[in-house]
């Protein structure tokens, strides 16, 4: 089966910061879609985060984007600028897709 190379961005942000990131993705013409998943927990340089029950203030989400290399680099820089002092992780990796017109 023929596949096509693309880049995958994985963006972990606090739930309350997600709308700003999604807004940025929606304004980038090279991005055709995104998927958002809830994070159950994690540990990073700001400590461990687990579900708090009483508050969703510390909840994080994972936003997945698959796009071309050029758009991925541009978007990664823009997301990092948007995150500024906020907690967040932005990763880029190689991925292969079967339907290139979708990404």
């Amino acid at each position, binding site marked *: 089966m023929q596949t096509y190379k693309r880049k995958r961005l994985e963006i972990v942000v606090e739930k309350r910061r997600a709308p700003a990131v999604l807004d940025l993705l929606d304004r980038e013409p090279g991005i055709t879609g995104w998927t958002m998943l809830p994070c159950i927990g994690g540990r990073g340089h700001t400590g461990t985060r687990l579900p708090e*029950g*009483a508050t969703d203030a*510390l909840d994080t989400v994972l936003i997945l984007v698959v796009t071309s290399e050029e758009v991925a680099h541009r978007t990664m820089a823009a997301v990092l600028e948007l995150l500024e002092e906020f907690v967040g992780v932005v990763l880029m990796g190689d991925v292969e897709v079967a339907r290139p017109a979708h990404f």
Partner: protein
Amino acid sequence: MDAALANLLSPPVLCFLLGLLAGIVRSDLEVPEAVARSLALYLIFSIGFKSGVELAANGDLRPLLAPLLVAAGLSLFLPLPAFGLLRLLTRVSRVDAGAIAAHYGSVSIVTYVAATSFLSSRGIVFEGFLAAVVAVMETPAILTGLLLARAGETAGPDARRRRELVHEILANGSVVLLLGSFAIGMLTGSDGMRRLESVVASGFQGLLCFFLLDMGLLVARRFAGFATMGAGLLAFGVLMPLLGASAGLAAGWLLGLSVGGTALFATLAASASYIAVPAAMRLALPRANPSLSLSLALGITFPFNLVVGIPLYVAAADRLVG
């Protein structure tokens, strides 16, 4: 002493202690997150609705004005001694001190609910409008905390973040639900109460117990972080509610509230937010460490108020006003 023991042996506090114990022995007992959040919504709705109904029965809104103004003032100014105490007792950064101070100026709705439950179990009446006071005390402290944290900084958050913050403060779910249910209670009055009584009144104690079971589990999880917090911060978690309660007692007395009302005012001033303020702080002060403020508000001050504080504030109010 009787009241303290009665509080300790009441079903809500015993359920909290059960959750705490289960968490400490690492039991796999858990309340599903969606259930816990639904219970919180139920408690907020019930307390708002019942207060609205009581106020409707009273029919006079004038006694509401002065307590609301005083409550807003308390919320606005309580972060100042909290900030000073933190700088004196601990080595936390200015940003963290500002964020924690905001939590302590604001209020914990669940602590208020537990206090009303304690008063009802002892047959002590209180003013129905106090649920509106809870809503008013949620947010002014956020402003003071932000000013304290950002003092000396020239650049504040950009326009978009300011908009997000204002939206978070004004449209915060717990405040919207509390004020909304209060309004529904006022509009529907005793007829509304007849229809909803089986849910908002009869089921209240049982569901409060279930919610406090989950709170116990959450508090136990916070214990692990205490080792790294230092004695100063732990002391702050107990001293600040006592200081807040003193201010609340004085305010209740000056306003001429009943024993129950004065005790609730003290409880509110003694409590620290762990629902509304953490969310606002994540947008306004993202550099602040949320683990610190949550460990203090949820891990120390909440259990202190629930087990020791509430009967203490009621006894003090009884001495002062009764």
